[in-house]
């Protein structure tokens, strides 16, 4: 594995690792616009459970999604210490509420393993691949799969 990592031709990828629902995940850095502290949101009527509301990001109205709920975990009770990752998914800007953001992980593309297929749940369906890190591993979230086109909003 370590030899593979040193292979010069392998494409380098960078991921931001985060914790949501008590588990490790990561998101490719190119999809991330910025990381902010939690600020209170404006609640949207009739919004799905995972949609917390909207915030004002320098004049743009950005929806905030609870990543833990979206992945099927318990709802995060947001405090000042929680973090919003502003992501650009296709043409949309969406904020993801997570428990914490830890580090930037640089790996070569061939270190990314395919997700072992087992019984599926919302979390496993959104996982694009896994990256072994030391003794542990982290899971890559496929944001486009997680947030397909526009969220159908209940009327």
């Amino acid at each position: 594995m370590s030899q593979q990592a040193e292979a010069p031709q392998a494409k380098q990828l960078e991921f931001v690792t985060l914790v949501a629902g008590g588990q490790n995940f990561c998101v490719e850095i190119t999809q991330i616009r910025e990381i902010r502290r939690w600020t209170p949101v404006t609640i949207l009527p009739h919004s799905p459970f995972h949609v917390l509301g909207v915030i004002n990001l320098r004049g743009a109205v950005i929806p905030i999604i609870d990543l833990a709920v979206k992945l099927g975990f318990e709802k995060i009770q947001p405090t000042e210490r929680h973090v919003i990752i502003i992501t650009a998914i296709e043409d949309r800007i969406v904020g993801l509420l997570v428990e914490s953001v830890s580090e930037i992980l640089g790996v070569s593309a061939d270190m990314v393993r395919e997700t072992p297929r087992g019984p599926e749940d919302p979390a496993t369906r959104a996982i694009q691949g896994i990256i072994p890190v030391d003794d542990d591993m982290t899971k890559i979230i496929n944001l486009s799969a997680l947030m397909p086109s526009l969220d159908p909003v209940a009327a």
Partner: protein
Amino acid sequence: MATDPSILDTFFEECEDLIVALTEGLTEMRDGAEDDETVNAVFRAVHSIKGAAGAFALDELVGFAHKFETVLDELRSNRLTTDEKLLRVLQRAGDVLADLVEAARDNIPANRDQVDPVLNELQAFLGAEDDQPEEEFVFEAMTLDFDSAEDQSGYLVSFRPSHEFYACGHDPALLIKALNELGPATISVDETALPDDFGEFDWEGGYLTWTIEIEDLATDLSILEIFQFVDDLCDLKISPRDTPPPPSTPQTIETEDLPDIVTTAAVEVAPKEEEKPSADAPDAATPSPGPKADAKPAKRNATSLRVDPKRVDRLINAVGELIINQSVISQRLEKAAIPNASDLFADLDDYKLLAREIQEGVMAIRAQPVKPLFQRMLRIAREAADGTGKDVAIVTHGENTEVDKTVVERLADPLTHMIRNAIDHGIEAPEQRKAVGKPTQGVLTLTASQRSGSIVIEIADDGAGLNRTRIRAIAVEKGLIPADATLSEQEIDQLLFAPGFSTATEITNLSGRGVGMDVVKTAITTLGGRVGITSVPGKGTTFSITLPLTLAVMDGMIINVGGQTMVVPISSILESIRPNTSDISRIGLNGELLRIRGEYVPIVDLADRLGHPRDERKMTERVLLLIQTEAVPQCALAVDDIFDQRQVVVKSMQGNYGAISGISGATILGDGKIALIIDPDAIALNAAPRNFEEEATHVAAS
């Protein structure tokens, strides 16, 4: 070059302008303007489209434009006379040309069913003209070098390249060579302008004047074609060689005397048969594509500026932020309670005024006259009239009224529906009109006007008016209303906008699919507008669309609902009421009615409707906003508190999130927090279905 999308975009943008010019010219011709200038203007428009389309290999477009242009050429050289039939065909040809441009832009195949008949009709005019086939020969004759045709003569071309001509790297020899290929030519050069002292000689100076006499050339079009890319870089005079036959006089174009756009447009005119040599000619004449391509737009852009709408939008957004920022600062200052701050506040007021001024200025950039929209509508009306066999005159007023660009764009579809409806259902067939003593020609009036902060667009026909008995009967039949409902005339009229309602007994291909009017209404409501109907039996029907001047700024009432700050558009609020216990009566399980001036109005609890926690306070402790919408005559929104009335900058929610029922958008308040903007229509409408019946009856009862 042809594959560069930005050049193609520019081409289509220019095409839009040209089609506007074309439509305008055709309308003038229809209104009786028979002067050469009008015909020439139309001709130039068609010709420019053809010329540019050729460069992008848009063959269908070129083919059609060519035929169109040939007919126009016949017309401007007085070989054809303007009559009713010709004008009609020209109008249709203009429509088809616009279609083809659109098809080419969207990269979809053109609708041959529409194109071919018009093409044939155009051909019919050419066929009727005896000299047309001859003219075809004329051209071959030119290349093959033998005489024919009546008006063959020859042209005298005199051109003196300017300093820029040489500076751009053009070579006069190539032009002369191309001219020489048009027919037997005699070329002479006048070098008298050359300085005697070679020390003064500027190697790029335009000292030489060439005179080229071309024989056996029936038209100057191919000459103009050769010079098309350099006509603004040289002194060009083209005149018939001998005393020409009178008809061709108007064809003589003295390039230098005409404004730039004229030469640009008039260049490169050619009947089909000229296509081959002319395709080669400009090539030969213009060895350096760079400078010549730049040379022309530069001049044209002097009067107007093409800007990507996104840039304007960005500016509008930034200005919106500026205004919000201003209110943040003033709120902060007030809180800070600085002593002797009156100067500071005076300055802040100036800042506010300036910001507003900038905002108005930026909004004005987005404003566009409704003229192009109306012109499209003229065409729709014409087609509808043709399709139904009705004789309809279309009158437009207030074409220069300016509306936000988005509004103009999004109005096209609803207006199309309404105009088709007006002609299909509104205006009666000629025989019927005669029977009731009206002139056989119906009149459809399209009016745009500005009324206190709104734009009003009216579509009025002088038809039979709405048949309310029938509308009611249909609504009952379709289950839209109960059979025993008592409805006012207005309410019956509003039924037209109910989904799935169609009065046409037979479905015509123009209208009557039963989707029309509710789609119209939705489209207009999304724009923040309203539709109203007034109809007088036997006299006609008027639909009036009321739209906000701009979509970006709105006057709103800041309210509190279930702990959330929200905004209700002032335009829909009639009044705010703090009710007395005696004004509130219960209806059904949870329903409440407000009595106001003897009328009973349903109360909608906004918090409940939006899924916020319900305020347990009594109605009397809360505030009711009496709103009026098109859907429901009156409705009272129960809110927790009202704070303030102010201008808010509207932000769309759709981009990042999607539409939310009952919410039309969002805005950012002075403290930087987002407040959602209520869509009163949707709120009232969604509350309406379940109590439509009661409402209908109680309105009638009151």
